[in-house]
């Protein structure tokens, strides 16, 4: 579906060219965008949701939003759109929306992955730790969770993370501070045998 007039995709391609390509419905450009940003989006979505299927769903929806909005993004053009930042923003917003819906519809916060195969001790311990970590993150409100995912896991600077969450830097830092306090408290509770709320 390579469109006539689409930018050449040989060699390094800038975000603006990528958006321009997607805007003219160039499938190759779209695939490159998925390849370049898919992993990051999937990591963010997974750590926000704690569930791989939900994470894939969010990545798909994020990329489809890019497909839909590329003509508009390209029209804004100057200055060149920050594609990665835009994608992260959409991904985070989708995850937060979905968490809100899940919270409304269910009390279950931490999805468990079913695995029927017998587990070795080490593997079991890893899974337990992973589950505990997910439970720890899942106890956080959606926005705090996003702040931790972006700054701790994705190692984004506070300003970049604030931009991704469409927040003022001061407000974001305050949110992050509260998130870290909540994490530490949750961790302390876990260690003392208390239940993660």
């Amino acid at each position, binding site marked *: 579906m390579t469109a006539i007039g689409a930018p050449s995709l040989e060699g390094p391609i800038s975000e603006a060219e990528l958006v321009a390509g997607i805007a003219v419905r160039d499938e190759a450009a779209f695939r490159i965008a*998925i390849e370049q940003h898919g992993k990051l989006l*999937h990591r963010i979505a997974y750590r926000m949701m704690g569930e791989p299927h939900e994470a894939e769903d969010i990545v798909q929806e994020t990329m489809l939003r890019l*497909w839909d909005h590329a003509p508009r993004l390209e029209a804004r053009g100057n200055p060149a759109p920050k594609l990665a930042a835009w994608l992260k923003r959409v991904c985070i917003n989708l995850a937060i929306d979905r968490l809100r819906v899940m919270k409304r519809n269910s009390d279950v916060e931490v999805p468990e992955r079913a695995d029927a195969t017998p587990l070795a001790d080490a593997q079991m311990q890893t899974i337990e730790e992973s589950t505990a*970590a997910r439970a720890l993150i899942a106890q956080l409100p959606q926005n705090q969770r996003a702040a931790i995912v972006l700054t701790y896991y994705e190692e984004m600077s506070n300003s970049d993370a604030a931009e991704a969450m469409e927040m003022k830097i001061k407000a974001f830092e305050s949110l992050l501070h509260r998130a870290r306090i909540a994490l*530490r408290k949750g961790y302390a509770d876990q260690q003392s045998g208390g239940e993660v709320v």
Partner: protein
Amino acid sequence: MSDTDLIARDSGLGRLLDANAAPPLPKGLADRIVARTKDRAPPLPETRSRRSPRRRWFSARRLSIAALGAGALATAAAATGALEDWGVSIPGVENVWASLTGDLEQGKNQALVGGGSVGDGEPIPAFAPQIRRSTMPDGSISSTEELEEAFKRFDRARQGMEETRRRNVDRGIEQVIERRRARGLPVPTPAQEERIRDRIEQSRERRDARSKTRREGRREALREKIENGEEITAEDLRPGGGVGGADRPRFRERVERLRELPPEERRERAQQWLERRQERRNRRNGQQPPVSQEQATQAPSEPEAVTEN
């Protein structure tokens, strides 16, 4: 924010958080996403323009200036009596207050330009004064010539309104097609559009014919009234008033009474009315289909249910 606030990677909490490894990107994800683009409808057009706040402020300022300018012009026009000449109604403070406090009877009767009350308290649409001033006779009518002249004025006004209505319908059709096109939805072909317009035109003609028949009936009654030496007032000429509409106050009384009844009784009355209506229809058509309960419960408290009671 201080560095001590950071979560150290080698701390217990850091190690636990690091245990939450993300799984690899699922295979075939790109194919699945690309496949979903095939049947994806194009996004809806933006409903709001993406203008900068500065532009918005300018726009708001322009609007304020325009509103103030229009207000000043209206005040000047009202002061010189120009609006009265054009047939534009300007409610006084007491009318506005009456409409706010619910004292509508007083407010409505005072709101009319050119005198005359609504009679049964029915609100007059915003455009009514303009039409009224140009068509309604100032005093009573006592001769056939005056009556025919009044009918001619009504016909001219009606023709104008029908033209406006026709233009609005045409514009509505165009807007619907335009909106569907903008959303990427299928739009009718020129032939289909022609058929739609034809159907609307036919329906309009049928409605106009029915309306004309009714009108002619009323006009005949009014002519008879003149021939009998009676005078006709503006009230008689108004829709729902005079001949054929003289039971308007009674109708309203019935509606009020109906509203005061308990819901069960209202439903029962509505059912009875539906049955009677069905009987009348059957008599006209020479058949007798039964009235369904569903039909009966559709409009338990519709005022129409009383008009033919």
